[in-house]
């Protein structure tokens, strides 16, 4: 059972804190832009891509994915903070199902990540990309689904860790590898087979691949998307359902 009021107020709380904490917004927006323009801009000169997309254009979907990955995981990890500072107890003794809490948290992450990815998306004209209005709607949709999946994944992580010492463990051993093994910085098809295998169990890969379809649909050759669009969508939807269910189960535990 899902209580609408509870989900609403959990999302409203996160949104309010997000708007209030300007510095967090600045840093989450700055990171992808630094990668896009410094790494992407620099590498564009080294990586000849012929007549297709430039390297900077190529990593743009990956940078959107990065924005979503970091902000979704960060948003869900706030559950650990809530536990540590006692606020989680206020939520856990309320007459609402654990699943509502998980849905509320996942939707918070979805909302905040989507907002941030839309801000990054607005930079596309600077990269010389042309994206039509329909594609933009599609991109926002894919970003939202991917954000829901990754936020739910973050909730699963948060339910296994109790203290914020674990925060850096999660960042270094889970989030960074997920980013590098997602086809964000280099196409999956040029990777060694072992790494290719890793990218295929990473839901972020398919989210980014879907974005590639929408951002440079005409691209052929090594920089083109690695999987069919339909597969991408199916995987991220399935990942959302999978992780939110596991998250709900993990939350259900009682000492």
């Amino acid at each position, binding site marked *: 059972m899902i209580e609408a009021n*509870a989900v*609403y*107020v959990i999302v409203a709380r996160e949104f309010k804190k997000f708007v209030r904490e300007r510095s967090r917004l600045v840093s989450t927006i700055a990171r992808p832009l630094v990668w896009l323009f410094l790494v992407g801009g620099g590498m564009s000169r080294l990586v000849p891509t012929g007549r297709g997309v430039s390297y900077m254009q190529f990593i743009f979907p990956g940078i959107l994915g990065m924005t979503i990955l970091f902000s979704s995981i960060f948003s869900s990890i706030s559950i650990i*903070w809530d536990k540590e*500072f006692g606020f989680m*107890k*206020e939520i856990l003794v309320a007459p609402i199902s654990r699943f509502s809490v998980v849905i509320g948290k996942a939707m918070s992450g979805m909302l905040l990540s989507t907002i941030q990815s839309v801000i990054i998306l607005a930079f596309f004209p600077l990269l010389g990309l042309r994206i039509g209005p329909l594609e933009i709607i599609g991109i926002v949709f894919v970003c939202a689904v991917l954000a829901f999946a990754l936020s739910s994944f973050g909730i699963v992580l948060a339910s296994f860790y109790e203290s*914020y010492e674990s925060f850096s463990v999660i960042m270094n051993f889970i989030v960074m590898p997920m980013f590098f093994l997602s086809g964000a910085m280099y196409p999956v098809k040029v990777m060694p087979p072992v790494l290719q295998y890793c990218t295929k169990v990473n839901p972020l890969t398919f989210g980014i691949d879907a974005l590639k379809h929408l951002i440079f649909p005409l691209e052929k050759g090594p920089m083109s998307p690695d999987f069919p669009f339909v597969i991408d969508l199916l995987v991220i939807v399935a990942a959302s359902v999978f992780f939110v269910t596991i998250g709900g189960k993990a939350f259900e535990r009682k000492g």
Partner: protein
Amino acid sequence: MQIIRVDSLVKKFGAITAVDGISFEVEENTIFGFLGPNGAGKTTTISILCTLLAPTAGTAYLNGHNCHSESAEVRRSIGIVFQDSSLDKDLTARENLLFHAYLYDVDKAERKKRVDEALAFAELSDRADNLIKTFSGGMKRRLEVARGLIHRPKVLFLDEPTLGLDPQSRSNLWEFITDLPKKHNVTIFMTTHYMEEAEVCDKIAIIDKGRIIASGTPQELKKIVGGDVIYLKTTDNKKAAGQIRELFGVEASEKDGEIFISVLKGEACIPDIIREIGERVLSVRMQRPTLNDVFLKLTGKEIREEYASAGDDIKEAVRSYRRRHDRG
């Protein structure tokens, strides 16, 4: 009606038995107190009653519902002020209360009114839109109590509500709490290790090492250590002591220039004694037994308050250290 019924409740954490087969009942609209030293099992018992922990054995019923298997119903009937603050420090007082109102599905038409009421009740109307970060300990506690009442619970749990407050805010909070059962039709279940605080309870259970070692009204418990002691100074103590023993058939002995007399109801005896004895009375004072005496008598040790608060200071210091180093 018995709003809480606990029977042979046990909770083990691995090898530690935190709650060791306790049974008690709480009458509706009264103040019930759990008195015990650190680690006695007070918070653990509350966590079971609040559905946050599953008992290892035994049963607990609240408002007719099983605390383990009917957690949704139980949760609707209770409000809680946890031992550690559970406010969101980055939200305002009003936002914290509104969050609670939504969480408990308070009627839309009622929501704003109840929040305003709670703010007024906590005497924080003028600070309603300030962040909790800027509140003092006493303000936070009052706000938490007011928040716990927003959804009109049947039972309000207060786990060490005055912990870490200065004596002034402590007594203010107590005035505020003792009025609750009448004003709000609510049963109060509180824990404390301050003896004086437990005196406001209608009924007390003294808990030590997971077991209830005594329970009853504060008066009943004090009888365990005997009644009041009257100290009397007269022109001739020796003679007066003899007269008192003879006339009243009570124990009276002389020590350090004073006669001390053990009686059950001191205030009723004093006038009789003064009237009946032949010697002129120079001074009289009376000492009531405290719950501390009770605890001492039952366990052979004191409930050590200094120790308790030192422990909490350390906890708080560790937390704030972590906060500074991990968040920044």
